[in-house]
């Protein structure tokens, strides 16, 4: 499989519930980033976690990184309708550190 694979591919939950999205990657990384993309729009940087960090918080976002399993998770707590978007993880690899490798993304739908 390719670097930066998210699962699930699509997630639909009720407003107020928590949403968890996962990302796996193959090669060693400098950092892993999560981005949000509203339909047909630009990429919004959410959070960056460095390879020597295990967990990071930003508002309602919580990101974990397990470099031994080469995986990361993004948790959005107390979801809102405005959180409806696609979420992508992107890795900056140690080899080729001037580019981000994106996953396929998780399409998150928050139902009111």
């Amino acid at each position, binding site marked *: 499989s390719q670097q930066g694979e998210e699962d699930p591919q699509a997630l639909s939950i009720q407003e107020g519930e928590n949403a968890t999205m996962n990302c796996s990657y193959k090669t060693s990384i400098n950092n892993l980033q999560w981005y949000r993309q509203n339909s047909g729009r630009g*990429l919004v940087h959410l959070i960056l976690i460095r390879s020597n960090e295990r967990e990071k918080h930003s508002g309602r976002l919580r990101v974990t990184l397990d470099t031994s399993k080469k995986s990361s998770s993004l948790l959005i707590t107390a979801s809102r309708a405005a959180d409806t978007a696609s979420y992508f993880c992107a890795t900056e690899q140690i080899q080729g550190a001037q580019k*981000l490798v994106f996953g396929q993304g998780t399409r998150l739908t928050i139902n009111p």
Partner: protein
Amino acid sequence: EPEVTQTPSHQVTQMGQEVILRCVPISNHLYFYWYRQILGQKVEFLVSFYNNEISEKSEIFDDQFSVERPDGSNFTLKIRSTKLEDSAMYFCASSYQTYATNFGPGTRLTVL
């Protein structure tokens, strides 16, 4: 907060025509990038640019593509002879270091 800007937001062109996509990166940033996203697919790296030269490019970035920083503020992507498969959203990005990348809103290129 400074942002990366891109023009035009939507470009329609005939197959075989040349197009130039324009970007104004954040002013104190040193690294500049182009990515593209074919509809429904993941974001793909095209090229990175540092110190007035290409520092890395992907297999997608063939001889039909070129980048230029013609002055101190603009960063352009030229496609010499567009093909149908060049239809995509093109994102410009910039960063002060090789992470924490700021993306622009994108230019949607439609090749007819």
